[in-house]
Every structure is written in structure tokens, then in C-alpha cells.
């Protein structure tokens, strides 16, 4: 009797995420991501042939010479912009996935929490205050955007604390309110100054990618990777947090401490993205939802796959943005919203994910 029970127990299949499956999924996506980087380099107002790209990269190693034009296009214009898309897209997607879990709201992402509007206010202020803050390769506008994002998130976070805890609904509501207030301030500031500023602010708010210098790229990468490392460290805890604060606590999780840490991580990720690119819409909502349909709901896998997948998505969107109406560039935020919005509506109706 006991033996037959043991047999049943042993045949029960329990699939869990192992380090091996985690590594193989991550490697597969990294390869896909590298292919996307390569393909994105082919396109632009001046098309390059695959051979040219390969020989240019080889020349970096061997010291052989390639044409000055090819080198400039590839290493000064195209590659930094593609890498920026990979990092910004990945950061926004991973942060969005994290916010959806801790706020238990399928629509949660950086916007709803006021981070993007805080960054936008920073950019607007940088147009008024002519300070030379260009450090670590970042422009004054980027630094102000970064600071604005962090300060807004801190304010939202502080307002939302009720009795030492952070209830999901208060944080969402205070985020929405802070957003509304900041946008009123932005509109006020832009309406009282000359229109050239207005145009710049408008373009920045749409979200667009430029070709940053490598120092700036390195700076935002450090912030982004730090945030991502913290998120991965707590990715299992994020699964537990979706059960609700009480359940998570009785499972032995220090709920408020985990929330605080992943919140800081999210702030770093989003701030690093919006600093250079502006608020690019829908990446943070759409990518995690698509990823969960593909790999399931285990955040140990959802977060890294969202990071790499978000990067791939934004690289592709940006390639389209700079080639579709060449030589005119479409702000990439328009592409992501135009593709992300309908996709999300499709998921909503067909897959009933939310």
C-alpha cells in the first residue's frame, strides 16, 4: 500500500525553472538580439551591405582600413543608436513587467507612476535654466530628465506609504494625480515661452532615439544593468508578491523591503531610458504581456526575456522609424504606440489576459 503510494508520488510531474532552462532561454534570446543588431545596421538612409559591416568590424580588430564614410555611419551613427534602442527598450519593458507585478495591475508602467512626466518636466526646466551640467557624456537635458524621473518616483512613493506599508491602489492613484499636476506645470511653462521650445518639448514627449556618444551610452548602461541586476535578484520574490502582501508575508517574505528594492531598481531602469530617449510609449505594457504569453508567469524568466525582447522590439521599431519615410525620421514613440496599442487590444479581446 505504502509502496504504491510512493510510486504515484514519484511519477507526479513537477516542472520548475532550473538554472539550465534559464540559461538556455537567455542565450537563445541574446543570439536573437545580436542578429537584430546586425540586421538593424543594414538599414538606414544609406544602406550598407552585410559584407561592409563585417569587414568594418574586422578592421577594428586587425587594424585594416575601411572607408571613412562607412566607419562613421556604422560606429558613430548607427551602432550607438541601435545599442541605445536595445538598452532603453529592455529597461522600459523589464520595469513595466515589474510594476505590473508589485501593483497587481496589468496596465501599470512607468507612465502611470509619473516617472515619465517627471522626466519631461526635467527636460522642460533644462530649457529655461541654462546650466552647463554636461557630465558623464550626458547632456544637461538628459541629466535633468534623469533627476526629474527619480524625484517624481520618490514623491509618489512617499505619498503612497500608509502606516509603513505601500498599498497598490494608493500608489497608482497618487501616480495618476502627480502625473496630472506635472503635465499642467509643463503646459503652463511651455505656453508662456516662445514656440521653438514648444516644438522641442513636443518632440521629446513623443519619444525619439538619437545617436548618443559612447560615454553617455556607458553611463545609462551602468544604471540600467544595476537596476536589472537588482530585479533579477528579487525575481522569485516578485512571483510571491503577486499573491498579495499578506500571503507573501506568511510565506516568509520581507514584503516592504523587497518592494522598496525593486522600486529603486525600476526607477534606475526607467530613468536611464527616458534620460536620452524621452518617454517611449507601450514598450513597458506590451512587451511583458507578450512575454508572459510565451514563457509563462515565472518572473525569473519573464524579467530577462522582457529585457532582451524589449530591446529587440525597440531596435526593430527604430529601424522602421528611420527608414520608412527616409530621409524624414518618424519619432519611434509613434511606431511603438501604433503597433503596441492595437496589439494590446487584440490580447485584451482574444486572449483575455487582463
Amino acid at each position, binding site marked *: 500500500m505504502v509502496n504504491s503510494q510512493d510510486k504515484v508520488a514519484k511519477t507526479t510531474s513537477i516542472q520548475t525553472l532550473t538554472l539550465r532552462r534559464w540559461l538556455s532561454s537567455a542565450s537563445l534570446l541574446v543570439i536573437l538580439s545580436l542578429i537584430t543588431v546586425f540586421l538593424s545596421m543594414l538599414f538606414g538612409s544609406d544602406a550598407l551591405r552585410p559584407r561592409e559591416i563585417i569587414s568594418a568590424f574586422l578592421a577594428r580588430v586587425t587594424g585594416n582600413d575601411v572607408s571613412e564614410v562607412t566607419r562613421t555611419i556604422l560606429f558613430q551613427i548607427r551602432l550607438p543608436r541601435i545599442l541605445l534602442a536595445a538598452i532603453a527598450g529592455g529597461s522600459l519593458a523589464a520595469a513595466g513587467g515589474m510594476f505590473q507585478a508589485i501593483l497587481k495591475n496589468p496596465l501599470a508602467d512607468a507612465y502611470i507612476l509619473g516617472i515619465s512626466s517627471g522626466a519631461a518636466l526635467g527636460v522642460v526646466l533644462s530649457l529655461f535654466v541654462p546650466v552647463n551640467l554636461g557630465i558623464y557624456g550626458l547632456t544637461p537635458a538628459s541629466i535633468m530628465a534623469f533627476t526629474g524621473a527619480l524625484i517624481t518616483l520618490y514623491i509618489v512613493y512617499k505619498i503612497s506609504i500608509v502606516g509603513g506599508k505601500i498599498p497598490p491602489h494608493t500608489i497608482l492613484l497618487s501616480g495618476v494625480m502627480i502625473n496630472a499636476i506635472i503635465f499642467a506645470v509643463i503646459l503652463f511653462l511651455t505656453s508662456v515661452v516662445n514656440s521653438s521650445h514648444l516644438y522641442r518639448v513636443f518632440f521629446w514627449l513623443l519619444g525619439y532615439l538619437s545617436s548618443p556618444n559612447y560615454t553617455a551610452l556607458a553611463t545609462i548602461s551602468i544604471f540600467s544593468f544595476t537596476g536589472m541586476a537588482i530585479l533579477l535578484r528579487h525575481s522569485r520574490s516578485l512571483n510571491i508578491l503577486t*499573491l498579495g502582501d499578506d*500571503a507573501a508575508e506568511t510565506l516568509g517574505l520581507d514584503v516592504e523591503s523587497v518592494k522598496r528594492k525593486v522600486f529603486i531598481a525600476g526607477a534606475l531602469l526607467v530613468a536611464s531610458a527616458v534620460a536620452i530617449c524621452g518617454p517611449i510609449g507601450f514598450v513597458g505594457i506590451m512587451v511583458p504581456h507578450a512575454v508572459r504569453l510565451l514563457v509563462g508567469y515565472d518572473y525569473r524568466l519573464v524579467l530577462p526575456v522582457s529585457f532582451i525582447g524589449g530591446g529587440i522590439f525597440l531596435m526593430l521599431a527604430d529601424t522602421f522609424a528611420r527608414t520608412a519615410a527616409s530621409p524624414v525620421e518618424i519619432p519611434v514613440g509613434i511606431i511603438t504606440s501604433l503597433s503596441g496599442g492595437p496589439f494590446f487590444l487584440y490580447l485584451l479581446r482574444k486572449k483575455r489576459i487582463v
Partner: protein
Amino acid sequence: MKSAYQLSGVYFRYGDAWVLQDIAFDVTEGEMLGIIGPNGSGKSSLLKLLSRLNTPQQGDISLRAVDLALMDQADLAKTAAMVPQESTFFFPYTVAEVVLMGRTPHLRGRLFEGRHDIEVVREVMHWMDIAGLGERPVTEISGGERQRVVIARALAQEPDILILDEPTASLDIAHQVEIYHILTRLNEERGLTIILSSHDLNLAAHYCHRMILMNQGRIYAAGTPSEVITEENIREVYGCPVLVDAHPVSGGPRLTLLPVHRQIMPEIHKVS
């Protein structure tokens, strides 16, 4: 007999109103304790005090002679596991994933479960008769199955004490009996201390060794089921007339609700 929990002079309030007043009792290791009382009498708040989801404003709670407030979060989760009244799932995790989450206090900093964790989970799933549901989304199984999944998750914590808030609240009679049967087996065969709250006085009286009757945030009566379930106690606390006699099979107390007499509700009678 060693004590699992010891409470003395415990007062607890949300905001201004006291929810629990002057609570003092011991929970003995290995016993099955039922907490009963009307809605709002403080049953859930009391269980939340035991699992440290609530902290008392006054009084002492100790778990195995250690001050509950000073216990490490993971150590507490490895000693006492809580099965909440309702479990909601934001994401459709598979049943196996949900039960694996019970290993959280044992994993500490580790990101991935090891072979031992899988073994424990396999065993508790077998115990709870949900071994065949492993790959099903937890949002798509029946209420009775989900309750067993959540109990399995609590058991995966490998606790010595299981705290359950109205574990049979939304289940049909067959599933209610099934849950009590499982709890009794866990209590007898594995020596788990079980503390539960219930609105079903007959079932609780049948299965529990000892009962605590709560009324307006205070302990009204405590003792064996036959000491607590008396016509007088129930009429006084619940405010409805009942008949208590001996259960024909077990010999324990059996409670029968008496239909409310017309004279007790004259206004309603007049309207109709």
C-alpha cells in the same frame, strides 16, 4: 504538554475601536483548536495576530517561548503556516508553481529550487490529492481543489503549526468534510498543531479537540467541544435559539437550529 502559542493580556485595535480585548490562552503542541464566534467577533483578527499579520498594541504573544515580534520572518514561516480565508491569483500560475512558492522560507537567497524542494512539493501534493493537477492553471480549477492547493502550499513550508481562516467557508458539504478529514490526518499522522476558525459549529465540534468561543472581541468560553457548545452559550453569543443534544454517532455535541418564532420578529410579520 508543551505550548505552541502563549497569549496573555492581548489587546488589538484597528484605528480607534478595539477589535480584541484581554485575550489570553495557550495552544498546546499537537492539538486541533477551533475558534468560533459570530461575524465581527474577532476570529480573523486573532488568527492574523498568530501569524503576525497584525501586531497587538498591548500584551504578549510567544511562539514556543520566543517573543513573536522578535522572530525572523523566514523562521516564523517555517514554524507556522497560514491558509488565508480567500486566495486570489493575479497571474494564472500552474498548481505546481503555486505549491513550490511554499518553499520560499527555505530558499533564503537562492533563486532556483533544488531537488529536495521538488521532493517536498511532490509529497505534499500527493498528500493533498492534487498530484494530477500540477500543470493546470490555478485560476481554472474548482474552489475545493484551489483550497487544497493553498493548504499544500502551506504544507510545503514544512511547518509544525497550521493556521486556517475558515478553511471550508465556500465549499459544499462533501468538500467541507474532505478538508476536515485531511486536517485530522495531518494532525494525527504528522503531529501538526492545527488552529482554525469556522462558522460551521457542528463540523468544528466534531473534529476539534478544543474550542474557543469569541464574542465581541473577547473570549466568551473555552474548553472541550461539549463544554463550549451549550444551548446557553450559543443563544447568548449568537442570539439565536438552538437545541444541543448528543451526536448519534460520535456522542459529541450536536447543534440544531430552531426556526425563529413569529413573536420574536413582530414587525417583519406585520409587514408581510
